[in-house]
């Protein structure tokens, strides 16, 4: 079956759902259908650990009876099952309340230009090849140093599939995408024989040929793990904190939550009424690029069919837009911004420093490489999380640290960003370098 005929099949199914909803009395409806398959292989200590074949399909639909809604989902795509799901959703809509803000996004906002974003590169990977690659990745890590004594293994996975969305405005689209990844996690023993440390590394891409080599993933996993050995606690102190790119993206994740419609209309955000106000220093620009070919979050339309667009979320440190779906927009008397399914590729402009220059700029402080737990209060912005990293003096790493917490308030942390490095990590959908925050409270012994 060609990809085009698979796409046509899914579109036909969406139209069947919409017709069925109409037949059962719905005034409008929307539906998403996904189908995909994949293979994942876990190896450990040079042997296969797990070999898993994935074959997923699912349908999610919402029906509207004027201003009341009902939803249903199912893993069964047979016509009989779809009829049942529509019936269940229609039954629910009879009991939910009318809400003027509910309904499809406005028809004139539907995406009309659907460029090929080059997201679909299935990988014809046999189980044998997958096992071989994963084993060589893990072997590189285990051979790297005699202190690496154990392993959590290496995993190679590939997935490709289709996602269709349609609604009763006549919008119907399907996108094909793939994702592949290779990861490795190994364990090293402390010199005193007492404790163990573990760390990992991974590579991911929509195109198999663009994955980092198995050897480089294994080597990096081993190096990361060895760096953690003989970590110490720190005493309590207020110091600058530098977030590596993988963690810096979480800071901008908290920003995205705080300006998302769901948090704002409930006034459950520390950034209520922040549109047009200065939240970051002047040099911070956050921009969204939904059309990056092969991008991790690239999409021409959001979860409601609304056209996405290139735009700044923050310019010169000032909030340019909220992140709204049609529902949250109506609740706030605004128009949807095409963010029903989040931000589509975010870029944080760098202030130009390399990783080493960022460390030098910090001079003395905490280089943050791991966060654990989720101690964030979205209403007040209070922030307190478990941390691991390195103590830095004179711009140079001194020793690893662990079992400490870092705390502050996100509003202050945003305002006190000192610099953003150019050491981007291309694996993550938020393109940011390291971020240096002027000061945070580090709690230890």
């Amino acid at each position, binding site marked *: 079956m060609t990809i085009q005929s698979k796409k046509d099949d899914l579109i036909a199914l969406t139209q069947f759902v919409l017709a069925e909803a109409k037949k059962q009395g719905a005034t409008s409806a929307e539906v998403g259908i996904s189908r995909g398959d994949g293979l994942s292989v876990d190896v450990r200590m040079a042997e296969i650990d797990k070999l898993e074949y994935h074959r997923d399909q699912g349908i999610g639909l919402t029906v509207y009876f004027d201003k009341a809604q009902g*939803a249903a989902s199912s893993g069964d795509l047979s016509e009989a099952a779809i009829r049942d799901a529509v019936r269940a959703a229609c039954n629910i809509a009879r009991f939910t309340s009318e809400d003027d803000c509910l309904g499809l996004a406005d028809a004139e906002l539907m995406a009309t230009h659907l460029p090929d974003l080059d997201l679909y590169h299935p990988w014809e990977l046999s189980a044998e090849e997958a096992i071989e690659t994963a084993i060589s990745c893990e072997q590189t890590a285990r051979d790297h140093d005699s202190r690496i004594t154990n392993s959590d293994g290496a995993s190679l996975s590939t997935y490709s599939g289709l996602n269709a969305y349609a609604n009763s405005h006549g919008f119907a689209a399907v996108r094909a995408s793939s994702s592949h990844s290779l990861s490795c996690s190994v364990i090293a023993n402390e010199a005193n024989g007492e404790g163990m440390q573990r760390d990992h590394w991974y590579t991911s891409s929509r195109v198999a040929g663009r994955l980092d080599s198995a050897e480089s993933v294994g080597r990096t996993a081993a190096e990361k793990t060895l760096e953690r050995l003989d970590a110490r606690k720190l005493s309590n102190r207020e110091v600058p904190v530098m977030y590596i790119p993988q963690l810096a993206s979480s800071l901008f994740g908290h920003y995205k939550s705080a300006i998302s419609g769901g948090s704002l209309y409930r006034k459950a955000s520390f950034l209520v009424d922040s549109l047009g106000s200065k939240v970051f220093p002047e040099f911070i620009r956050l921009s969204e690029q939904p059309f990056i070919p092969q991008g991790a979050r690239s999409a021409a339309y959001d979860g409601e069919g609304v056209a996405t667009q290139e735009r700044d979320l923050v310019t010169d440190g000032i909030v340019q837009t909220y992140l709204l779906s049609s529902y949250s927009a109506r609740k706030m008397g605004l128009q949807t911004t095409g963010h029903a399914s989040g931000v589509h590729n975010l870029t944080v402009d760098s202030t130009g420093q390399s990783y080493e220059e960022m460390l030098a700029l910090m001079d003395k402080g905490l280089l943050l490489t791991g966060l654990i737990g989720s101690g964030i209060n979205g209403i007040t912005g209070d922030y307190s999380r478990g941390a691991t990293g390195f103590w830095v003096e004179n711009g140079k790493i001194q020793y690893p640290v662990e079992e400490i917490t870092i705390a502050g308030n996100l509003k202050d942390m945003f305002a006190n960003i000192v610099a953003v490095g150019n050491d981007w990590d291309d694996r993550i959908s938020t393109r940011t370098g390291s971020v240096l925050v002027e000061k945070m409270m580090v709690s230890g012994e």
Partner: protein
Amino acid sequence: MNLMDIAEASLLAPYELDTSKLDRVFDHLVGPKTDLADLYFQSKRSEGWVLEDSIIKSGSYNINQGVGVRAVSGEKSGFAYSDEISMEALLASAKSASAISKAGQDGRVKSWHRQDAFKALYTPENPLDTLTEVEKIALLQLADTTARSASPYVEQVIANVVASHDTILVADHNGHLSADVRPMVRMSVTVIIEKDGKRESAGCGGGGRYGLNYFTEADRIKGYVDEAVRQALLKLEAVDAPMGEQVVVLGNGWPGVLLHEAVGHGLEGDFNRKGTSAFSGRVGEQVASKGVTVVDNGTMADRRGSLTIDDEGVPTQCTTLIEDGVLKGYMQDKMNAGLMGEKSTGNGRRESYDSLPMPRMTNTYMLGGEHDPQEILSSVKNGLYAVNFGGGQVDITSGKFVFSASEAYLIEDGKVTKPVKGATLIGNGPEIMNRIGMIGNDLELDGGIGVCGKAGQSVPVGVGQPTLRVDGMTVGGTAG
């Protein structure tokens, strides 16, 4: 009808499957080197309703059904699944899953045994049918009106109720057929309050393996609402949490999430077989203070974490993990138990048919000690009294774990004083267990809201503990 009849009627009969057809599947799945193979049939229906802005904002119905096919040879697992239950899908999945240990012709199951003598820990009744739609909605409306009359500062109430009905059937290579029918209900209430321009939010909820009328009894909804409102109002007055190492007194009940993170995960069989847990190879050693006894008990009637049988068809049990501070054993599924020369403890669980089972907790708690909670608090000169928590997380290899206190107070001169802002507590599991200085006589289990995540799979669990004094734990506050 017994559970097996119910399961066969909904998972095999409609698809024209019977034991002779399953024989043929095992022919393709099992080979000379196969140690373990099973088929996991599942059909789950769930329904949820959400109230916000005092109206019933949304509702949803979910159908989740399929079959998972697994073959294990030594440490290797082969796995495939299908969203469609049919002979064709079973044979295709068996072919894929058997790739790890080339199947031969000796896979035929000798004879089939229906394992149906287990005493069910909950009723098989479908919770979705225990109340009418109007009555379900009334639960949420009651939460809304109760909250709005509880305090003039309540700005927003978000309430939801979820019910599910899960029927499973496990057929294994030894010819054992086991079945379970699992109800689950859960309700939660979140309030957002505003007072003097300051806003806060808090939530509370509960549930278990009951029908929805659980929520119409014993003023439960009022209990959830009052607790959520009380916690939210308290947060408005909270001062900055202290920083650095403190003596921490943990309240009873839900703070048992500490045990779940500090020792529970580290005692799961898979990590110990692989030697990747901070507790690996330490059975028989003193790993906690004297007086500390921790169990994992899947056999408690109607509890959220309980199971009549686990997802490998093994009846659950009460497993002593730590007794008087000495490590007694691990939580096991069939595969890891087999590799370690032990027996499954009925802890083989999976999120659904599309995921492989692994050792998971059920209801994990510490038994009570002899001290009155008040006596414990007054024994502390200065410290932190943490009575409610958000979630937690652990790195089982280094033993480091965190959990976030959502309700905590300063202890000053043996007295509980000001409430403090939410803060993360961090410690090392094996170390903290040796710093338990006093154990209360007030063991309590949580209200039925726990969800545990491991390797991408979520399962419902229970936690519990008495009031505990931990003599030194790092508190992630901002007040020096």
